[in-house]
């Protein structure tokens, strides 16, 4: 059992999801999977240097939580503003708004 390969596969799955999903919540789930892949590496470090590995792991959790908080806040704001969580629809709405403002000008 190799945690490095497991982490690499998780990272690949997360990046694939990040590039292909158009739902904002799925994008957030992809970011969570990438963060889980990163923290899985520290398990291997913790096997050789138990205290140091766990200390790094907990610092990584703190960063992960901060990133999750920011993404969720932005998700709520964008979803409430545009009424959808689909990235394609949001882009289209933004484009329409820009065109309307150009016509008004």
């Amino acid at each position, binding site marked *: 059992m*190799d945690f490095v390969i497991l982490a690499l*596969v998780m990272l690949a799955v997360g990046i694939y999801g990040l590039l292909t999903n158009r739902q904002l*919540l799925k994008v957030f789930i992809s970011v969570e999977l990438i963060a*889980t892949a990163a923290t899985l590496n520290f398990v291997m470090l913790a096997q*050789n*240097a138990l205290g*140091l*590995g766990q200390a790094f792991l907990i610092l990584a959790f703190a960063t992960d939580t901060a990133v999750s908080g920011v993404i969720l*806040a932005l998700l709520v704001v964008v979803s409430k503003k545009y009424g959808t*969580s689909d990235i394609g629809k949001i882009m289209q709405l933004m484009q329409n708004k820009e065109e309307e403002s150009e016509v008004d000008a």
Partner: protein
Amino acid sequence: MVPFIIEVLSVGLLVSAVLALFLDEVVYSVAALAGTFLFTTVIYALSGSIFAAVFQFAVSVGTLAILFLSGEMLGDKPVKKASSTKIGALIGGGIALSLPAIFLSVSSGAGVTVENSFGDALWNLRGMDVLFQAIVILAVAIGIAIVLYEKRKGVKA
């Protein structure tokens, strides 16, 4: 016995990760993500990282509670339900993805072992990191409050 259990858990970890990404309904995706977090927690605990397992559990419970709420509130409903063929294909894909981690190895066996207690490593070796991260998290919390306050203010105006 423990390595075998960790291998089974790693298969479950990747299967639930694939399901979390590719299931159509957001609530089911979040449920699969809960499985991913649960498997990760048990892998940490079985690897001897008990503190990490407790932290992972606490963080994941908070994340999942918020995700269930926002998934129900903000997620678009899918037009049709996922077929059992698709779910079976996703589970098969997850199992296939976990095979390299079980049968291949890139780590060298001769690792350097460092003996540190958890408290010693956290406060003496990474003490500055802990302080700076506390400041970063405080800044993030204030930033989130400002973003949501601006949003509320914008709605009133």
